[in-house]
């Protein structure tokens, strides 16, 4: 049994402890200790009932900690009064944990950290490595988050939109260290989709799968960005694409469109095109119109301008760009691209350089700098085009 499998039992075990009356923060600590013991001790010989083992060990850890606590008597009474849990569906507990870990009273970074710990079963060290902060800092972030949500009543209805936002944040963090956060986000979203029947949960899962499917094509071996149009589509994962499209279609059929489904639809149109030239940009523009109707977001307006440029030509794209706020990240990059296609390499080169200065990550900055350099080379040595 590997670590990922052990970790996948986390929400169920945590849910059982909380339902037996354990306070959330203490239960979370106990489950974490049991997980570490399992990962260290099981090796090639896991117990026959891994979940039962984890529940027993975590419960014992919880009781040990509780006995040492000044509130011992109160908690033991609580435990005595609690009926022995029946075989209730574990999914109910899991859902409550999702809502708790993404509670609106938490800051986004705390919600992300708590979700990865309580639902993902990651250790504090792994989370700290993934976010490139010291372990002590992450430990504080998690323990503050636990204190904050401990006061939240467990039966309080949660906010699906907040949960989805937190999972999307995890997904977008990519990966660093020994944990692939994109894969982790997909795993957690799958779990959520199994626990709750909601078209936007399906939409987010489809979106993640469709983006993840293209991951291998997005970077060259040297780590540099490969633009969508130039990606080797043979490197895309067709299995994940088919799965994403299937989930999306089932969600769309329910006629409760949301932001994530619309984004997934755009990703599906990209993933489905056999070549970049065969991309159905007209339909992509239509989905952007839906997205605008749902969100009226300036970022959507910006991306729509790119799609319009592909569907109706660069002039139309520039016209669609005109009302967009110039201070948006990537505005200059989009403008540069459209000006180049419109046959104005001098303006494009200047805008690419400006976009590189404003890029928020190194890979993107390098990509944009190369674009500017490519055009400047052509401008300075016209014969070599």
């Amino acid at each position, binding site marked *: 049994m590997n670590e990922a499998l052990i970790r996948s039992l986390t929400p169920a075990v945590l849910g059982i402890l909380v339902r037996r009356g354990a306070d959330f923060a203490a239960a979370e600590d106990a489950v974490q200790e049991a997980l570490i013991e399992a990962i260290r001790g099981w090796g090639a010989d896991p117990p026959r009932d891994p979940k039962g083992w984890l529940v027993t060990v975590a419960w014992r850890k919880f009781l040990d900690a509780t006995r040492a606590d000044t509130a011992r008597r109160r908690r033991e009474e609580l435990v005595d009064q609690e009926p022995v849990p029946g075989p209730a569906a574990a999914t109910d507990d899991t859902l409550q944990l999702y809502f708790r870990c993404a509670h609106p009273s938490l*800051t*986004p*970074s*705390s919600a*992300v*950290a708590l979700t990865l710990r309580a639902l993902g079963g990651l250790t504090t060290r792994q989370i700290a490595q993934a*976010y*490139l*902060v*010291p372990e*002590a*800092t*992450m430990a*504080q*972030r*998690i323990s*503050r988050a636990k204190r904050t949500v401990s006061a939240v009543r467990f039966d309080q209805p949660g906010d699906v939109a907040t949960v989805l936002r937190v999972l999307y*944040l995890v*997904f*977008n*963090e*990519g990966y*660093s260290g020994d944990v692939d*956060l*994109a894969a982790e986000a997909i795993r957690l979203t799958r779990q959520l989709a199994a626990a709750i029947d909601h078209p936007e949960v399906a939409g987010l899962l489809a*979106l993640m799968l469709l*983006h*993840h499917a*293209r*991951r291998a094509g*997005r970077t060259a071996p040297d780590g540099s*960005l*490969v*633009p*969508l149009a130039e990606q080797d589509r043979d490197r895309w994962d067709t299995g994940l694409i088919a799965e994403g499209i299937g989930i999306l279609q089932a969600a769309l059929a329910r006629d409760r469109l949301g932001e994530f489904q619309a*984004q997934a639809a755009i990703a599906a149109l*990209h993933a489905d095109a056999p070549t970049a030239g065969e991309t159905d940009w007209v339909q992509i523009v239509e989905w952007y119109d839906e997205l605008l109707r749902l969100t009226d977001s300036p*970022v*959507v307006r*910006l*991306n729509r301008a*790119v*799609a319009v440029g*592909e569907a109706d030509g660069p002039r139309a794209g520039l016209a669609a760009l005109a009302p967009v706020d110039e201070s948006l990240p*990537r505005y200059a*990059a*989009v403008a540069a691209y459209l000006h180049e296609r419109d046959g104005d390499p001098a303006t494009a080169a200047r805008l690419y350089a400006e976009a590189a200065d404003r*890029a*928020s*990550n*190194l*890979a*993107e*900055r390098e*990509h944009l700098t190369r674009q500017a350099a490519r055009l400047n080379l052509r401008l300075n040595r016209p014969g070599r085009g």
Partner: protein
Amino acid sequence: MAKYLLLKHYRGAPTAVNCVPMDQWTPEEVTAHIKYMQDFAARLEESGEYVDGQALAPEGTWVRYDGEGRPPVTDGPFAETKDLIAGWMVIDVDSYERAVELAGELSAAPGAGGKPIHEWLELRPFLAMPETTTECHLR
């Protein structure tokens, strides 16, 4: 969830409002200043926003490659250097607004007369990891 570098400058930044060189403060004022900085870092550690911080000595050496097989050229420290960094702190916060708020707090460290220095701090975002998805059609 973005990292920022807070830079304190010996010089190069605009003049602080309460600009009296530290060696002309009373020892108690120096102690109060240092304690403020330590408490600030401790509070950030507690809130899960602290990454790292160090003070730097004022003397620096400039180093340059001088060609194949030759030792690097060193020079300086240049007295006329416009900018000198006194120290830095890295924070990891949820928003730009929070970063500005914290930099403002750090700038309020007490100086001469026990009054805030009102020094200028430079706030620089780190370049992040590339996102797994970008909504643009770049990737």
